[in-house]
């Protein structure tokens, strides 16, 4: 009958058991780390005065699991993070999000340092002051010094809270690249509505987009781009996140904000249930993160004085939870969907350090406060000692 022999794959489960989540993240970072440490050793650069420091935050969105990223079987999807960025970073292996796992509300929670409870699908401002408001109020910075580049309609209120002591006039300016595209394409197009869909959880839903004049004004005056140039460039890009990165480059050159927040979203195509598209999204986001790091190093306004943070807003459901459908959603609230990672690199950050201690996603804002010299008095988290 059949002739069977033991395959290499048979060893996988046992090997996997030997790798705890912490261990495979540590090992992934450690493998990439060796050569990088030889030359530099300790701090990337001396910490500089917070007055001149800049911070860029990228949310690696929307939601990716360990097994498609840092776990051994997923590492092929993130060559840039592993090979180029982790060796230069302090890497936090356990960032826990105890809040609502919807992209807008989770990003709002990251930006306020409080687990927000606003409706994920409504265009509402966060209820607690955002990092942008703390920064601008305490440091007396103009609106042009804090910007958010975000993927979809719901994020247009993320820059400024409804908190009465902050709020109006103190927040970040927000660019929604897809809004810019809508304005640029206002002559109408048969199929671009599909591109402009607001979130992947409700694939049919396309928001009513307004404010074309404001968007065109942003494009021409702030980004120094003509409508034709923008349209022409957009036609060379493959995804909304690529468009966001293009806009970020322009923004860095034209406005050079001290606090810049970029929310990626391509990965969230996973909600459509096509695994290959989810993987494609992860690979693209990996590449775009590395591109942005290169931009930071090459732009005179940023080089040598910028700290970059990269973190997912949360993970996705595990294959083992019968309440979910694996990678497709983030609805169960299980440990895998709540636990993720963060890397910090650049000015004032030690290279090649892996931190296993659990932290919460609400710790980001207090950490930024310590770096940029503002007091996030209403944030729930604590400054991360390895960075603050």
């Amino acid at each position, binding site marked *: 009958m059949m002739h*069977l022999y*033991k395959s290499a794959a*048979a060893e996988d489960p046992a090997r996997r058991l030997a790798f705890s989540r912490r261990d495979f993240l540590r090992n992934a970072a450690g493998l990439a780390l060796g050569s990088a440490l030889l030359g530099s050793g300790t701090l990337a650069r001396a910490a500089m005065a917070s007055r001149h420091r800049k911070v860029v935050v990228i949310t690696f969105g929307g939601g990716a699991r360990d097994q498609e990223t840092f776990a051994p079987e997923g590492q092929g999807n993130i060559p840039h993070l592993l090979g180029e960025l982790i060796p230069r970073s302090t890497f936090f292996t356990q960032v826990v999000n105890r809040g609502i796992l919807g992209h807008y509300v989770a990003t709002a929670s990251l930006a306020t340092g409080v687990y927000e409870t606003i409706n994920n699908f409504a265009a509402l401002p966060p209820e607690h002051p955002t990092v942008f408001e703390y920064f601008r109020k305490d440091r007396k910075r103009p609106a042009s010094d804090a910007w958010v580049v975000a993927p979809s309609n719901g994020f247009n209120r993320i820059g400024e809270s409804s908190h009465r002591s902050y709020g109006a006039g103190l927040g970040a300016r927000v660019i929604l690249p897809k809004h810019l595209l809508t304005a640029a394409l206002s002559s109408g197009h048969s199929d671009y509505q599909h591109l402009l869909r607001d979130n992947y959880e409700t694939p049919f839903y396309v928001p009513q987009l307004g404010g074309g004049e404001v968007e065109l004004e942003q494009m021409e005056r702030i980004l120094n781009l003509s409508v034709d140039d923008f*349209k022409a460039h957009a036609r*060379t890009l493959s995804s909304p996140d690529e468009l966001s990165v293009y806009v970020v480059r322009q923004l860095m050159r034209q406005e050079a904000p001290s606090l810049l927040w970029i929310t990626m979203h391509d990965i969230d195509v996973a909600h459509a249930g096509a695994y*290959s598209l989810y993987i494609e999204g992860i690979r693209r986001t990996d590449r775009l993160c590395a591109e942005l790091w290169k931009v930071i190093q090459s732009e005179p306004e940023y080089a040598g004085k910028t700290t970059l943070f990269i973190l997912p807003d949360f993970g996705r459901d595990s294959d083992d939870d*019968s309440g979910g459908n694996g990678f497709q959603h983030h609805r*169960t609230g299980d440990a895998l969907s709540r636990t993720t990672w963060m890397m910090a690199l650049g000015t004032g950050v030690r290279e090649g350090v892996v931190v296993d201690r659990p932290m919460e996603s609400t710790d980001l804002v207090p950490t930024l406060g310590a770096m940029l010299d503002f007091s996030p008095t209403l944030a729930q988290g604590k400054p991360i000692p390895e960075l603050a």
Partner: protein
Amino acid sequence: MLPRELKAEHFNGYPPEARKLAIHYLAALQGLPLSFVPNLLREAIYYDFKFPAERRALEKELANLQSLSADPSAETSSGHPAEHFSDWFQGFAQITLSPQLEQMDWVNSPAQFVEQLSAHLWATHQLDAFRKAATDYADRLHAAVPPEQPPVPRLGIAVIGQGVSAYDEPLFRKLRPHGGYFGRVKPEGGLKLLLDAIGARAQSHPIPYGHWYVDGGEEAEHAPELTCVSYRALEPVRAALLRKMRGEIETPGMGPEALRTLLAQMNPSELGLGQGGDPVLDRFQVKLLTEGSGTQIFSTTFAQWTAREALRRAQPCTLLVRFAPRQRQKPMNELLSEKQDQAELDPLGSLMDADLGAYYNWINQQRLAGADQSAFLVWFENHREAVAIGPTMPRGTESTTPTDLGELLSWIALA
């Protein structure tokens, strides 16, 4: 309204069988906490359109609840204290609900209540407590009312990679550790052989909705005893759904949540089904398209989700799922180009989707009773690779011996 205020007339809006069921078990429903009972009613309200396996499971669950004594001092015939409602529902009773939830019409709209409850649990940080209560309840129920064993060991089959001429990456990486990998399988006539085999199982073990064939494309010829769902056959339904959606989206005030609620309330007749068909299967198919995410767009998602729902609800003894190429996701630059071509297919991407989809099919099959006797076969269509999993198949093994799919089936499926 609270559950203790429930009366028989509250169920007048239910379909006839569901109304009878709810009234029969009214006493049980009255004793349940509000954080729990709409979850049960969400199932009960569709009793008339449920598969036999889920009907039986629901009846047993309600009978168990009815049997739980409201008197903590009561004893069973064996002299052990009877279990009280509070033992079972302590976790649920501790969930705090909002007045808005209490005022909802949760009897007639239990699904909407559950959706609102979910948002409330997230917002009030009670999700973990609710999860624990639900898990504890499920464990108790499982012990008190063990799930039905299948009359014949289950057999799952996944056929993946239709339209792919060559693929160099390793396939079945997640399934290989659980069974045997075969690299020299005779591919000729493979699909027919598999369909004939499951047709024969259906004829030998006639069970209503017990043997399924799901096709992500156009269904192949198959035995009439099989319950068949295919993406192609539902094309007019999908088109009708998309038309309705476009119309609704243009309605002022329509948002993602309202849209989801509206989708969940759709009936087969609104989408062109329900005339002389099978009302149970029609309702199932509509739910695939209105409650599944991406099932309307991608055939690979449709096939995986259909398998998941068929296993969860109908608990079939046999399930063959054939994945077909889905439409290609257009990159942004193409969407922005002036010229729009017909939808193209993405066979390679679909193979990746289906490879994981097959793994999910196996996981979902293993969640059912009789998992230790279940068998599973995944085959790269028209190619020589397959993985076979079953109680007699050594795990994590490989074979280069020439074989065919019939032999593989005979090694893993005993009936």
